């Protein structure tokens, strides 16, 4: 009896999970085992053939390498910069409230809008970035940031960092404000230098906040679609795609136009991110046990 009553209370959330998590997951796996015509008509099951074909795609190694670089660079730089920003915002200074609000703006703005804005900032002919660099004599000729194979990934990563900073900074800021003042007092009494205090007191106590920041950022950045899609839309081929935009191109924008194959990559994407996060968590807790 008691058990059934529990189910009654759990029912709505279970139904919600079934509808928005399990149903799409089941549909995705099912699609990845099927063949579709170019119009989307289901043509029957093909077993694991889509997964085998996925491995044959010439662009796959490039796309995987791009994805690793994309996630690693953005998360690493974002966390490091956020540590500094949060430290700054944790200090009391006139106008702090204003700066805290200003930091939220890139977070609150739609990522597509931000990406479009950066397309124009980076533009070879009209972009403000080239104007600024030329005026400062940092470059002698304008740079085609989004058309030059050597710069387009860095340009996209910069935007990724820009939109990831607010969230990460606020997570670290929350972590900082949770550190009790007594430990700093103790450090001061012991005569620790500012640097020493930071490394031996602040950073270890920030570990839970950093853990959350890294895990969530890895997931967000890996799954991020609009930045790469918008900034890379002029470039032919798959030389600058991540696994997420590549999946979309397989389904709708390349000559493959294959929903089944794209679904197979979708399943792989979910598994990759799961494994990456589990590995990370395991490494971190292992270190903690050792320490």
């Amino acid at each position, binding site marked *: 009896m008691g058990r059934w009553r529990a189910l009654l209370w759990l029912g709505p959330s279970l139904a919600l999970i079934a509808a928005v998590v399990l149903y799409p997951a089941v549909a995705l796996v099912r699609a990845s085992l099927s063949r*579709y015509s170019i119009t989307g*008509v289901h043509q029957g099951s093909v077993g694991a053939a889509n997964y085998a074909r996925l491995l044959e795609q010439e662009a796959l190694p490039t796309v995987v390498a791009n994805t690793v670089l994309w996630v690693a660079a953005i998360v690493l730089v974002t966390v490091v910069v956020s540590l500094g920003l949060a430290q700054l915002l944790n200090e009391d200074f006139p106008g702090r409230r204003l700066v805290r609000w200003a930091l939220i703006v890139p977070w609150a703005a739609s990522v597509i809008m931000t990406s479009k804005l950066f397309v124009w900032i980076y533009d070879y002919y009209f972009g403000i970035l080239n104007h600024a660099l030329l005026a400062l004599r940092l470059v002698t000729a304008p740079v085609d940031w989004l*058309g030059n194979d050597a710069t387009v990934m860095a340009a996209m990563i910069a935007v990724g960092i820009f939109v990831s900073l607010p969230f990460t900074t606020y997570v670290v800021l929350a972590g900082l404000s949770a550190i009790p003042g007594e430990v700093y007092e103790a450090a001061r009494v012991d005569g620790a230098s500012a640097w020493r205090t930071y490394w031996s007191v602040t950073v270890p106590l920030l570990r839970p906040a950093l853990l959350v920041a890294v895990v969530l950022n890895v997931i967000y950045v890996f799954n991020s679609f609009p930045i790469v899609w918008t900034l890379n*839309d002029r470039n032919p081929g798959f030389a600058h795609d991540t696994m997420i935009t590549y999946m979309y191109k397989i389904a709708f924008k*390349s000559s493959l136009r294959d929903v089944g194959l794209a679904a197979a990559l979708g399943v792989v994407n979910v598994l990759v991110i799961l494994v990456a996060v589990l590995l990370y968590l395991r490494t971190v807790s292992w270190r903690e046990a050792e320490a």
Partner: protein
Amino acid sequence: MRRALTALGVLGAAATLLLSACDRGAERSGGSGKSITVVIAEYSKDHTKPFWQGLSEQYTKQGGVKVDLRIIDWNSIDQQVSTMIQASQRPDVLSLNSFSSYAKDQLLYSADDVLSPKTRDDFIEAFARGGEYQGKLYGFPILSSARAFFYNKDLFARAGLAGPPKTWDEFVHAARKIQALGGGVIGYALPLGPEEAQAEWAIWMWNNGGDWKSGDGWAINSDKNVQTLRFLADLANRYGVTQINPGKTNRTDGAFQLFKDGRVGMVMGFSPLAAQLDAEKKVSYGVAAMPTAAGQSVTLGVEDYLMAFKKTGNQDAVKRFLDLYYQPENITRWITAEGFLPVTKSGLQQMSSNAQLKPYLDALPNARLAPTTDPAWDRVKLDVQQNIGLAVQPGGNPKQVLDQLQKNAVVAAGSR
């Protein structure tokens, strides 16, 4: 842990049940005759929705059948339609720039099923042929457009050029003269980025006497076409008369933007670009025929389609909807509002007095269509969009790119 796994399994099974229930429900609900789903691509924010909403209301008043109208932007329409079909929730009427894959999958009514003879006979013959699959009309022309050659009159005057170039030699000469003006001025804006590369490429290809196909087979890497692509690569890398990275420039936010800003001597445009230029009044421009190396100037005509999807019990409702759209006053009112070109004989007659459309209407007899009647085209087009730009980048290899496109086209032609 084990209990959690069991719970997860139960949930999974429930979700699967839900899934199959949804599928069955979708099939059942198809074509009740009480309402039809009409999916239309958005040509402009100002005109598309008001027109089709008005048409739907008129239609509902006449026969009592409701219309579920969905206006979808071009960027996501392929994806959304594909999703509808995967979920067995086909639209009843759909507008798109391709039709033959749908005809091949036997999803469509032919003209015999859903068009009255009067409507069928009013189509301009070339456009009716452009909608045929295996000898039957499945893609009903909804509207058309034609590309034309735009040039900046001020820059031409400054460069001492008398008029628009007629041949490729004159074109290169003009482009070099304009580029030589300096100050960031560009001779020709060449957009071979993924957005619409197949259109730009087709115009150059045809004006050198090449084509997509030879007979029934694909001929993308013919000698003529290799020569044409080398010519385009030379414009960028040898003569240096294009904007930077033409293989990585899109049409709308790249080439057109530069022309609208007055920085470019020449560009391939179409009537919506003319409308924007007229509204902005920043650039004094002329419209001319394409420069050609093949004697007769050829332009690209683009035909978009209306399709009627087969569902039990919807034939009559769909037929009445199509007949309503194709009434001369309706179709012409919309095409005029959107600034496109007619697809019916009656429309052509009505619109021929419009002075602004004259250059495009003049070009229409020499316009060629993309091979949309071949289902393989839907893949070839995407392949060209994604890859041809690589050929005009520094160090690009035109022959190799075309060889690969040809190889893929042959595979696409053979696949289901």
